[in-house]
């Protein structure tokens, strides 16, 4: 018999959904952390799901609150355990392993090749796992929980990504945010220069927009292409027939109004907006604030773009 604890459930949801101040704002990058990961099939980077026997690269995006910090990284790709919750674990020997001994600011990546169809028959999905260490070297254990850094003081950053496997002609494409128009206060907003380090002074980089410290809210708009949301194979009538697209908003300064935007499977709009409040104070030479917009189709397709602004003192 079904029993319904609606009394507390409703309260639970109201509270859980509440927009109270979180302990840490997820949209603000306050320390180095992994904020995205994507799979690009060899020769067809728009494809997120490799097929049996194909090679692919898993790329990771790390956000830094200021200048990039050299770190060591340990990465692997393995068959994933068919679990539906909890920390993902490997179900067998890795397809590829990569461990760096020398600290680097390069974005982590690992290349792998899926085995042939006969060896993939019992494998539901692949799994990419990694550990970043600010000191020492990564130590990969039997599971990601057991993996860490050789320096006990280093707080390892552990991360994972499911790797879909294309079968029976079904695949999945990464969304293409690079071609999505982005606006700041109604003006086109061009991509950030790779040299635009968060927290750095505003010298150079004439193309980036400038806003005054304490200038209040600024409207950011992002219009992904409708083709980013792929049609899905018709099956269960209750299942959606098109992908949804979830966008994560992140910045290294100021205050984004919220962390996520979403275009639902049945939505007929493609424009997402978020307001950003500029920092109240910055250094005399101005400061660069870097933005990351990470799009996910929630089936393994991921893409990201970066923007920056110069925040100058408001004299």
């Amino acid at each position, binding site marked *: 018999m079904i*029993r319904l604890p609606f*009394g507390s459930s409703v309260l639970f949801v109201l*509270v859980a*959904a509440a*927009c109270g101040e979180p302990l840490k704002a997820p949209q603000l990058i306050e320390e180095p952390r992994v904020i995205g990961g994507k799979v690009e099939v060899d020769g067809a980077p728009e494809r997120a799901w490799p097929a049996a026997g194909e090679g692919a690269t898993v790329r990771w995006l790390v956000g830094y609150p200021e200048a990039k910090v050299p770190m060591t990284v340990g990465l692997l790709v393995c068959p994933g355990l068919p679990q*539906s919750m909890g920390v993902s674990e490997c179900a067998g020997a890795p397809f590829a392993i990569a461990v760096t001994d020398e600290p680097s600011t390069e974005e982590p990546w690992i290349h792998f090749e899926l085995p042939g169809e006969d060896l993939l028959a019992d494998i539901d999905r692949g799994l990419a796992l990694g550990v970043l260490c600010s000191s020492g070297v990564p130590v990969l254990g039997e599971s990601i*929980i057991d993996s860490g850094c050789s320096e006990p003081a280093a707080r390892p950053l552990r991360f994972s990504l499911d790797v879909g496997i294309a079968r029976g002609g079904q695949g999945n494409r990464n969304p293409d945010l690079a071609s999505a128009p982005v606006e700041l206060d109604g003006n086109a907003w061009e991509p950030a220069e790779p040299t635009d380090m968060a927290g750095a002074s505003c010298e150079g980089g004439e193309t980036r927009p400038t806003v005054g410290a304490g200038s209040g809210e600024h409207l950011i708009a992002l219009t992904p292409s409708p083709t980013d949301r792929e049609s899905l194979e018709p099956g269960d009538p209750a299942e959606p027939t098109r992908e949804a697209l979830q966008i994560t908003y992140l910045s290294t300064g100021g205050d984004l109004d919220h962390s996520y935007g979403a275009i639902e499977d049945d939505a007929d709009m493609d424009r997402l907006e978020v307001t950003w409040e500029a920092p109240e104070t910055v250094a005399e030479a101005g400061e660069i604030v870097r933005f990351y917009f990470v799009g996910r189709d929630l089936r393994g397709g991921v893409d990201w773009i970066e923007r920056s602004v110069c925040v100058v003192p408001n004299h």
Partner: protein
Amino acid sequence: MVPGLRLFAPRLPHARRPSEAPLRNHTRARGITHAALGATWLATLAAPAMGQEPAAADDPSPPVATRAPSGVTPPRVVERSEPAWPEGEVGTKPVTVVLRITVEADGRVSEVEVVTAPAAAFGEAAASAIQRSRFAPAERAGKPVRARITYEARIAPAPAPVPTLPAAKVPPANAEATPSPSSAGSGSDGATPPAPPPADFETARDATAAALEDEGFGAVAAIEAPPREVTRRTVAAAEIAKIPGTAGDAIRAIEVMPGVARTSEGDDPIIRGAAWNETQTYVEGAFVPYIFHVAAKSAFNSRLVERVDLYPGNFSARYGRAVGGIIDIKARDPRTDAIHGLLELSVFDSMAMLEAPLGEDTAVAVAGRRSNIDFFFEQFLSDAHYSVAAAPLYWDYQGLAIHRFGSKHTLRLMAHGSHDSMRLFMADPSDFDPSLRGRLEFASEYHIGMASLDSELGPVVDQHLQLSVGRFGGLMVMGPLETEFEIWQGAARADWGVRVSEAVRLNVGFDGEFQRLYGDYEGQPPPQSEGDSNPEESSSTIDMVHVEDTVHMVRPAGYAEAEIRPVEQLLLVPGVRVDGFVDTADVTVDPRVSARYEATESTALKWGIGLFSQPPVYYETLEKIGNPDVEPTHALHTSAGVEQAIGDSFSFGLEGFYKYLYHRVVATDGLVPPRFLNDGSGRIYGAELSARYRTKRTFAYLAYTLSRSERQDRTDDWRLFEQDQTHILAFTASHALGRGWEVGARMRVVSGDPYTPVKGSVYDAGVDGYAPYYGRPYSARNPVFHQLDVRGEKEWTIKRLKLAVYLDVMNAYNAQTQQGLDYSFDYSTRESYSGLPVIPNLGVRGEL
């Protein structure tokens, strides 16, 4: 009834279970959190008051019709003191007051409790009169013994005051045919002299007296039978409203009893370390799908409750399909003395009730209630984050009718239902969990109709037949997560009692139920019903499943139980229950036995042992998300205790218990197939102490439980039950100051709930969420909970109108004890959250 599936709330950010829903009281609580706080106010405001007696518990309360135990001659009244019609009360017909009294072996009335009364004044009048009466004591084997009996007192209206007529008024033309009191004349000064009672009053008075004579004690057979269960704890309607901190709610009133753990507002009760779904709740013997409205108020109107019985373990073979405890809510009969109406308005809901006799043998009562939250709900929301499509709304209704066919058959008809709903739209996905976005909607509804017939089929056989039909529906949507279901249920029960001899009574019965359940579920795979191994993970990092199915459940059961008294002090109750679970092709056979030995007139020893079974939760057997091969869980209950009365005012009870659960349904690691197995076990042991002090004006009740509840999942080590509370101390007291003033307080000191500490997390780049990993399950514990609730009330009587003003203050000294932990999105930092702040609740009540 069939244990069931908690409508599965999709996993939410940082993974607080519904039972742990925090209501933050600090600066984080903006926007909708205030709404949640407001909703919880619902639970504390508008406390209905029923009756005037202070709280009591651990106090068996049999129905009036309970038969005398064999071999006992009931007490007889030898000198009756007639109750006087209370001053200020208006009425033309006699009223009935049901009392529960203790007659000592010397014939003295030592304890009087008002069970039902049309108004407090009638109860006081009847109680006062019975204490002035003298009895011939009950006898067993020719020896006088102490006995508790239920006594129906009838109070006839006082003679109408003689109206003062104008001296010049001409008597009516038919004055001779219908003598009028005014014909007695008036004094020369115009004042009304005492008048002889009118003829019709004398007639009524005679009739009342005659009725009392006829009923006697033997005819009503009102001696309280010893309980068939080792432990039955009761809160009577008259006591419910007087327990501070429970908002006058019938079900929440059991919180003061031993063995009842502290839970969040509106959560199912946790009884003797059993999980929420291991205790079954009945309303008049019929299952209700949920107990509380969204505002933690009982879905069944507490004003229509006669009493709530709690069986924490070793319950009768009459009950089954539960390995924990039983809560049985008894509706009261409609009042038969006159038409009564009640209208109650409060900030949070409005309620109307009407009771009326329909002739000599029939009476009806109807009640309805609707929430008022929707009128102000949007004030608590942040417009930037939500739009309200349908504000929270709840309503319920009850209808009761009783008809007596002579003195041997009583038919009861009842219909009741309840509805809760709410719909919001989130402007953007939650910052806590991106999967929580779009529509947030709740709706639940049930409608139940039932009929029962109680009959005396002969001098030694009685019968109870009951049939109920219900429809339950529910919907819960949180963005892409959705649960919808509809259930049709039919249930039947038949019980027969046969007195085989003076020393043996046999009870046999059948109960069965049929359910057709349609469900459509989109959400995370449901974990095991207790002891979720992954309690903190948000839905964003969990793979969703979709299940749409229709299930038919057929569950017949039969039982037989004997009440054997081999010697006069000893009552043995052996019994057996056989349950069939046609849908899962299982049969369980549960033998049970209990014993009660009355060592002295004031001391009773009791003991019980037995097996209990409960089918798996429904989703655990579904092919897609469960394992069709899982079987019922079993439990061995044993308990022993002593009841001791000391003088007229003080009594205490002490019980020890041990429960062993085996064949428990537990989940596999990561819910990998077969997902659920019967590989778990559990052990619960402890002691419960209750002490009661009661005088005419003062009532005090102390309940203390020392216990430990543990579970073993698969081959893992033993862990604590998720709501294990080592110490549960509750002290409740109230005192009538006189002139309608009454004050009360409840103090609770309870061990904090255990929780599973988070050790770290792994970022899932595919969904932008963090999956936590844990230390030992339930190896940490929240600090001790403590809270004081106080209540004061003043009542005025203005003719038939009763007016009362009360102040109920929950958490009077604003204790801020940790209820749980809140984690940051990446689980790297955490903070504690506490429960409700101080909540004063001022109310006004009026009724005719």
